[in-house]
């Protein structure tokens, strides 16, 4: 798993590549917590190059969404979700909890 983080004026883009499984999910959680600890709760997850996400990874996503949405202070949105990843989200019943954008530009433009 590789994480690429870019801070913009009104949101943060986190590009997650490779595999998010039980081995790597903690590092993703850590990065998202670090962003939220900085008082930034508008997060775009760019999943263009995400090859695999297990339930451990989905747990990190839903956890971050819960924190971000608290007090209406923000939101996690997804961009470039590939078909396999989408079916995992779907099977978990998580698609209703995330706005999903076709590309990162639209996701950033949404904030």
């Amino acid at each position, binding site marked *: 798993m590789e994480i690429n983080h870019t801070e913009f004026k009104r949101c943060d883009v986190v590009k997650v590549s490779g595999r998010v499984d039980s081995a790597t999910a903690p590092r993703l959680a850590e990065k998202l917590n670090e962003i939220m600890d900085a008082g930034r709760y508008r997060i775009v997850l760019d999943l263009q190059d995400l090859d695999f996400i297990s339930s451990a990874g989905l747990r990190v996503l839903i956890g971050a969404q*819960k924190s971000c949405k608290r007090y209406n202070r923000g939101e996690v949105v997804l961009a470039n979700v590939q078909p396999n990843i989408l079916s*995992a989200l779907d099977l978990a019943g998580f698609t209703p909890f995330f706005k999903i954008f076709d590309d990162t530009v639209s996701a950033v433009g949404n904030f």
Partner: protein
Amino acid sequence: MPTFVFPGKYESLAKIAELVQIATREFGLDSCAAYGVETAVDEACSNIIEHAYGGENKGEIEFSYEITANSLIITLRDQGKKFKPKKIEKPKTNVPLKHRSDHGLGLYFIHQWMDEVYYDNREGYNILTLIKHKGAMS
């Protein structure tokens, strides 16, 4: 039937995934079905480490696979705590975000993505058999 032994730690998951990819390619699954098998095996191995062994580096995971005319048969063996679930519950999805539990997805994924799942305990081993048929849906 090739067998591979991995240390029971999360770092092994990516290596096991590579074997699964080799097996699903050899068997001839499309990308979506292959992704499902990869998920099922990942969830099963994570559970072995977390629940059967109760943590990393407590024991080994044996992975083997066999391809028949119509089936890809994956077997996972561990020497952890005996486990044989009675009933797999579909996670409640019809609840608002803040009440939505983020646990209990693993077994559900395994059963959704695979066509047949068998739990067995023999000679101190948990034996999990995961079967995927050719041309079956999901």
